[in-house]
Structure formats: C-alpha cells, structure tokens
C-alpha cells in the first residue's frame, strides 16, 4: 500500500512538472508582441507630419509656408504667427490624444520652441534660406 501511494505521488509530481513547463512555454510564446511595428509606424508618422507641415500652404496666412514663418521668426518680425499656425495645422491633422513638441534653430541657435512632449521619436528637417541654415524638429507623443 505504501509503495502504491509513493508511485501515485511520483506520478503527480511528474504531472505537475509537465503542466508547469507547459504554462511557462505558453507564457514565453505570448511575450513576442509587435511592439517594433508600432514604433516603426510612430517614427513614420512623425517624419511625415513634419514633412507635410513644412510644405503646406497656409490659407489663413496668405498662402505662406511654415518655412516662411520660421524665417520671419528668426528675423524677429513675428513668432506668434508661427505658434498659431503650428497649433492650427497640428490641431487638424494629428489624431486626438497626440501631443507635439516643435523646435526651430537657425545656425544652431534656438529661435523658437513649443510643446511639452518629452518621450517620442524625433524627426528633423533642414533647409537653407538667404544663406542661413535652419533646422526644424518635431516630436510626437501620446497623452
């Protein structure tokens, strides 16, 4: 009787070990998600959002582009218009719940910055106007 009991206990131990191993396998198999795919898309979204922003003709601002407004800001003519334009365009094109940070530099000197985004992919766009080198940077993040 004692021997039979110990055999049953041994069998139970084997069964428990097998179940334990199965659970660990299933857990690890489910871990592999598609996080890299969504981060790739986030990078693409940021790059395309900046690319679209610098080209778009702003109807409310006499058909000027954001590049024109950045140059005006750098020449100390007006920086508020740039801020209004950025909010108007990104308010319309970004998905609800997406925030942005935007920086503009002329010859490595920061001339304008807006936004509170601290984590996210950064995209940059460079252009030359009147012999000056400008760099625009955009970061998108989800609230």
């Amino acid at each position, binding site marked *: 009787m004692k021997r039979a009991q110990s055999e049953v206990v041994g069998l139970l131990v084997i069964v428990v070990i097998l179940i334990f191993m199965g659970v660990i396998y299933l857990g690890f*198999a489910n871990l592999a998600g*598609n996080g890299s795919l969504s981060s790739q*898309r986030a990078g693409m*979204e940021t790059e395309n959002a900046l*690319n*679209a922003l610098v080209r*778009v003709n702003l109807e409310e601002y006499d058909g000027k582009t954001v590049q024109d407004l950045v140059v005006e800001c750098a020449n100390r003519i007006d920086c508020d218009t740039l801020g209004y334009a950025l909010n108007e*365009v990104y308010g*319309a094109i970004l998905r609800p719940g997406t925030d942005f940070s935007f920086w503009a530099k002329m010859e490595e000197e920061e001339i304008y910055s807006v936004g509170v985004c601290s984590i996210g992919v950064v995209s940059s766009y460079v252009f030359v106007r009147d012999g000056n080198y400008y760099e625009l940077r955009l970061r998108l993040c989800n609230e």
Partner: protein
Amino acid sequence: MIKNRRSQVHVSETILVLFVVIVILMMGVVVYFKFSVEKNKDLAEELSEEQATIMLAKAVGLQELSCDGTGCIDTAKFLPFKRVLGEDFDMYRRIFGRKKITITEIYPVPHDSAIDVECDVIKYIQMEYPENCGKWTIYDYNPENELGAKISTIVSLYYPEFDEYRVGRLEIEHYGDIRR
C-alpha cells in the same frame, strides 16, 4: 496464489499509469495543436499588418503617385492611376494584394459638404475642385467582403493645377492575411 495476486496488482498498476500518461500526452497534443493554430492565425495577421506598414512607407515613393521623389503625393496622378489600374488590375493585385487604399484630405479642413465625398472625373472637372470632394479611393480589392484592420499615416498632397500643398491621410485597410 498470493504471488499471482501481487503480479495482477502490479500489472493493473502499470496499466493505470500508462493510461494516465497517455491521457496527459493526448491532452498536451490537443492543447499544443490548438495553440499553434491560434499562433498561426496571429502570425498571418501580424504579417498582413507588417506588409501594410511597408506599403504605407513605400506608397509615398511610388512613381505612379509621388511628385517626382520629393516626399509628397501628386493628386493629379490619382485619376490616371485609376485608369491604369483598371487596364491592368492583375498586376496591381499582385503588388497590393487584398487591401483598400484611400487618401483623405485633412488640412485645410474640408467643408462639411465635401467630407467623405469621393473625388472622380466629374468632380475634378468642376470649378469648385478640390473643395467639392475630400477623398480618393486609389485601390480596393476585397473579394470576400472581410472586415479589415486599418493603418494610416500623414502625407503631403500636391495640387499641380494650383501649385499648392495640402495635408492628407493615407489609409490602408488590410484583410486578415497576405493572400493575393
């Protein structure tokens, strides 16, 4: 007599152990099979999403749609592209597979009357164009009428007729797996 009984008990014990082991193995095989079927389904969906994401990245550079490699989409190419698509649909079906590709204008924000209105030749030749419509369906192939998942990105739209840039959203709806 007693020895004979002991051996009978032994045999029945062995049979019981074997039975339990076989039941456990069968349960394991069934669970594993179900799990791999689920995993394959997930993999098919993941591959379809991956393919759609690659297409999303490549679409802006497609010669048939892009404004000569400057990172924007030429809206004047939509109608000719749709005509070419109709003439050689098999070729484009091999490239795009079972998908729906649409481009919607999002900035300047279209008038209420133009939102979700499909742009076609008739709309194109009207004086109000491009304010009279706000959406182009570039490609649509969903023979089994499946429900799809959507991915999208922002694109720069160029209107050569007015030398004007606007902003749109390129959306790809993909259906389940990567069958063509």
